[in-house]
């Protein structure tokens, strides 16, 4: 195995595109190194992207934020403005692993690991984040919900890497929330995860919303019907009941050791309701 730690994106792309064997990008390494240890993957080339300064920065851009793909969860939490602007996304990224893992793990890695249960991905999808990809043919933007296609399968072409995420500008009275269900209190993989981002008008009516579910299908889902259920309402009982039903209707989960199909579908509705109410409460104060 060859290990390279270039300091520019172009150099990283060149290395990845030029590798005949299996090439992997190393960000925090909290998934990749464990998979290498257990012989799930045996890369011929590992390209460490942590030395590329562009990928390690959070910058304000167009009224929103551009977050480098290799920024760690701990750095998101310690940022002066992000936790206030996107509390749900920051808490999703900081549910991954333990304190020491949060000091390493990144949202770029969480997405590109290609797990349907990744915690930060529903947070990014709910936020309406756009990923900027850099590859041998230049740069392109893709919505985060269009990147993961199936477990371990991404819409990235050979040599392409996720460079950053753009969190859009948003009006006053906007906020978000992320909740996940696990049988323990920490250090576990989501049985169901749900991110909700919404905007309220001065009267408290929801004018925009995005709802995303994780671990209930082959890929994290953007559930437009669930968002429609609460847009134009003040999240009253009827709207929340519709939200729950729409969240459950979108689920196509599997049975596994962490949860059954029925349980996941049921919990998806519960989490969607609770996350929407938390986001509403935060938006009132935002």
């Amino acid at each position, binding site marked *: 195995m060859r290990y390279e730690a270039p300091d520019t994106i172009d150099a990283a792309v060149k290395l990845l595109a030029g590798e005949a064997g299996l090439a992997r990008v*190393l960000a925090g390494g909290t998934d990749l190194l*464990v998979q290498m240890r257990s012989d799930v993957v045996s890369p011929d080339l590992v390209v*460490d992207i942590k030395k590329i300064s562009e990928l390690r920065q959070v910058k304000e851009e167009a009224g929103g934020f551009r977050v480098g793909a290799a920024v760690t969860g701990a750095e998101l939490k310690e940022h002066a403005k992000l936790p206030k602007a996107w509390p749900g996304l920051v808490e999703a990224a900081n549910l991954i692993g333990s*304190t*020491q*893992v949060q000091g390493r793990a990144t949202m770029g890695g969480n997405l590109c690991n290609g797990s349907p249960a990744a915690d930060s991905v529903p947070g990014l999808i709910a936020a309406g984040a756009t990923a900027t990809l850099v590859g041998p043919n230049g740069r392109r933007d893709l919505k985060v919900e269009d990147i993961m296609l199936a477990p371990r399968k991404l819409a990235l072409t050979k040599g392409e890497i996720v460079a950053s995420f753009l969190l859009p500008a948003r009006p006053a009275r906007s906020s978000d929330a992320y909740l996940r269900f696990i049988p323990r209190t920490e250090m576990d993989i989501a049985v169901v995860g749900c991110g909700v981002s919404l905007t309220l008008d001065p009267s408290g009516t929801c004018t925009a919303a995005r709802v995303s579910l994780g671990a209930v299908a082959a890929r994290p889902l953007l559930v437009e019907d669930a968002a429609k259920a609460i847009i134009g309402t003040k999240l009253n009982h009827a709207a929340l009941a519709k939200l729950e039903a729409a969240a459950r209707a979108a689920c196509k989960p599997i049975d596994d050791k962490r949860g059954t199909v029925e349980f996941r579908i049921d919990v998806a509705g519960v989490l969607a309701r609770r996350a929407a109410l938390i986001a509403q409460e935060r938006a009132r104060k935002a």
Partner: protein
Amino acid sequence: MATVSMTVNGKTVTKTVDSRRLLVEFLREDLRLTGTHVGCDTSQCGACVVHVDGRAIKSCTALALSCEGKTVTTIEGLANGATLHPMQEAFREHHALQCGYCTPGMIMASVDLVQRNGPGVDEHTIRRELDGNICRCTGYHNIVKAIAAGAAAMGSVRQAAE
């Protein structure tokens, strides 16, 4: 194979290692610093926690090569000669270990959490911060007590120095 240089417990070391070499293997097998333990090697148990550039990480989940030029502190680097670090002293004083396997990682995680949360860190924060360190015999009660005491002691050491 590739060459890597880093500062470990104040000393500069340079070795030629396999590119798949994990930091914990480098510390234990190449440098013979066996105070850092391996419990699971999948980032769960926390026995391998060390500080890299002042921040706690799990050394089973970092490549040695990725630590090029970095400053690493292991459990062996905490004491000042025969004088234990206040956190080590607190673990001994409060009987915060039985088998001792998790202790190096616990102490390195504790020092990091006190550096970030201050010497007055409360019990709730200590318990939450220990989510990545697993003890399978003592139970966490005395560990939490030791960390609170060690945190206060680290605070007074710092005050005395100032």
